């Protein structure tokens, strides 16, 4: 586990978030969509997203819309990085072996 990985705590909520992103690793999801899919409350969800982003597992970027045209604020979209994809896969693989990474 690298330096950044040291900040990632594998809690049940973190695993749920990772599982949501692993369903379609190339998909970009906003926090609201992650909440809808895994049901984690905002007070827990956003610290996890920022934690995974700080660890390099996620990258985020603003939605490419014009808020005045769309009539709503732009969303922050998260996506798994290659490192995140690999590490998340390792974590779930270790679960399958019965050992937490």
């Amino acid at each position, binding site marked *: 586990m690298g330096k950044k990985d040291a900040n990632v705590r594998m809690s049940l909520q973190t695993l749920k978030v990772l599982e949501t992103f692993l369903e379609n690793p190339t998909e970009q999801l*906003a926090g609201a969509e992650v909440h809808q899919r895994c049901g984690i409350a905002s007070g827990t969800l956003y*610290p996890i997203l920022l934690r995974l982003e700080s660890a390099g597992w996620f990258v985020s970027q603003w939605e490419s819309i014009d808020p005045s045209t769309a009539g709503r604020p732009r969303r922050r979209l998260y996506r798994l990085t290659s490192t995140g994809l690999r590490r998340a896969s390792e974590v779930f693989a270790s679960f399958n072996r019965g050992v937490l990474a």
Partner: protein
Amino acid sequence: MSQRNVTQWLIHHAAQHAPESLAARLEEEWLADLGARPSGFSRLCFAIGCCWATQVIAHEHQPSRVAVSSPALAGKAAIAYADQNFTFISLRSSTFFLVVSLHVVLIYGFMSALSHTRKSAIPDPLQNQDLPRSHPDALPPPLPTPDLKHVPIEVPNIETNLTYAPDPDGGVTTESAHEPSPPAPPMPSTPHAAKRIAGGPGAGFPDTADFYPSLSIHLGEQGISTVRVCVDAKGRLTADPTTLTSSGSARLDDGALKLARAGSGHYRAATEDGQPVSSCYPLGIRFQLKN
């Protein structure tokens, strides 16, 4: 302030307490995600959650957590970390105690409300209470004397040429007696005198025993009550019977009136020249106990 404004204010407030580098981003991100919430309640929960998220994010982005390259700064960073870590523990502890306190207050309030409801549901035991005596000797003020004026009423004399003949049957049953009409005075010779036969109880007339007041039976009251009945040609009452002479017992008189009323339709109408006519006559009802 509407609920939407409250939630937006909460998010703005939460973002202001986030690290400066993340404040603007988090506020915009959370406001965008807030719009995806379907209901006002979920938006409120989302905003409150953002407040909590801010605390966690601020803790995780503390400067002490950044790798310290200079050994000289390591001590200060450690102290700062310890201090801020202590602050975080205090925050969590205070939050914990706040939640516990809220639960205690809620439970206490709930129990108090239940206790109040139970007290209200149980009535107070009955207690004797001495009421102040009114003045028993004080007599009520006398009623004002009505100003009555005697107005003479002139009753026109009605001359009739009817003759009354006693009913051969007498109109008397075994328990009821028909007051005999006074013998008609001898009428002067007229061209035609109507032959009148007085009415009385007919077939199906109720039994006197059925109207004998039970209390009178118990008290052994007996007597004859005479009521005035007005009967039409079909033997039905045309007016409510009235007591002419009392038996001496109000109960027996009342029973006689009830009997007279119940007999409507079973009276034998008076006849004039063989034709049934309406008439009023006294009806004696005897209440006599059978030994």
